[in-house]
């Protein structure tokens, strides 16, 4: 019992501090790395909750895919030249802090005063059933492929849509499959952006076609 309490105390403190670091550090790279720390410690809490499968998925998807995507984008965009600038909105911060504090006070108060879950709300998966099924992955599979089959299938459509969208947007314009005349509605605002366009550093993006 006490080892669980020690583990939880460690996980929660590190997750909170890393969360604070995520939003306070200057550089986006450090912010993304702090997020990885949060992700690992939240995964640890999933283990404490008896859900090892979610912990694994969390680490693989977040640390393995999403944060890597962030870091990759940061390298593409070369952000170093702005590291000396102001990092927060001067005006907005006076709105942001009260909103966040109020939100936290309300949710924290409800979270602390939340009574124990009453027996009649409980579902069909007590720990011993999960053990009988062979673990959290098997238990999740029994609902994922029965009750929640449709959301699971729709998730695949969502990923397809996102993949197509990302490919269209991030494709290198020089290697566009369509060589057509400039569009009529190309706006004047485009010219002010092109003057400080980075040279060459983006041209290595492979032009993939959907």
């Amino acid at each position, binding site marked *: 019992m006490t080892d669980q309490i020690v583990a939880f105390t460690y996980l929660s403190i590190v997750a909170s501090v890393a969360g604070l670091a995520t939003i306070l550090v200057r550089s986006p790279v450090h912010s993304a790395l702090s997020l990885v720390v949060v992700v690992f410690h939240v995964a640890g809490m999933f283990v404490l909750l008896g859900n090892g499968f979610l912990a694994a998925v969390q680490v693989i998807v977040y640390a393995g895919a999403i944060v890597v995507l962030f870091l990759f984008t940061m390298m593409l965009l070369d952000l170093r030249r702005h590291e000396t600038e102001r990092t927060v909105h001067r005006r907005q911060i006076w709105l942001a802090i009260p909103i966040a504090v109020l939100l936290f006070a309300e949710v924290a108060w409800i*979270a602390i005063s939340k009574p124990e879950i009453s027996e009649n709300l409980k579902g069909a998966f007590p720990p011993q059933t999960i053990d009988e099924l062979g673990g959290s992955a098997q238990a999740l599979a029994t609902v994922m492929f029965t009750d929640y089959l449709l959301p699971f299938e729709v998730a695949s459509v969502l990923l397809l849509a996102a993949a197509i969208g990302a490919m269209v947007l991030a494709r290198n314009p020089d290697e566009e499959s369509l060589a057509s005349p400039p569009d009529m509605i190309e706006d004047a605002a485009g010219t002010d952006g092109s003057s400080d366009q980075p040279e060459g550093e983006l041209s290595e993006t492979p032009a993939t076609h959907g």
Partner: protein
Amino acid sequence: MSIPLNAYLLVGAILFSLGTLGVLMRRSVLIVFISIELMLQGVNLTFAAYGAFLEDMAGSMFVVISLTVAAAEAAVGLAILVALGRRVTEFYVDRLDTLRW
């Protein structure tokens, strides 16, 4: 499970509120995106904790779906940023001022 539900909910609330603060406060678009991921961490923890204490699998299912959505959002959001990056190298929220807010 000797840790009470309230403790998990509290950590979830901390992560969600910190994420909200980050979204509202930071100027860098990338850090705003990362803060949204932090909010989703709070959501996931809340769902997983409720799922475990309710002895129900729907909580885990929501976490899986939420991970999928987070991945799809990250892909699209960063692709938009790359598309913008071909024109400008500034990634501050208040410098995106071609359009009036």
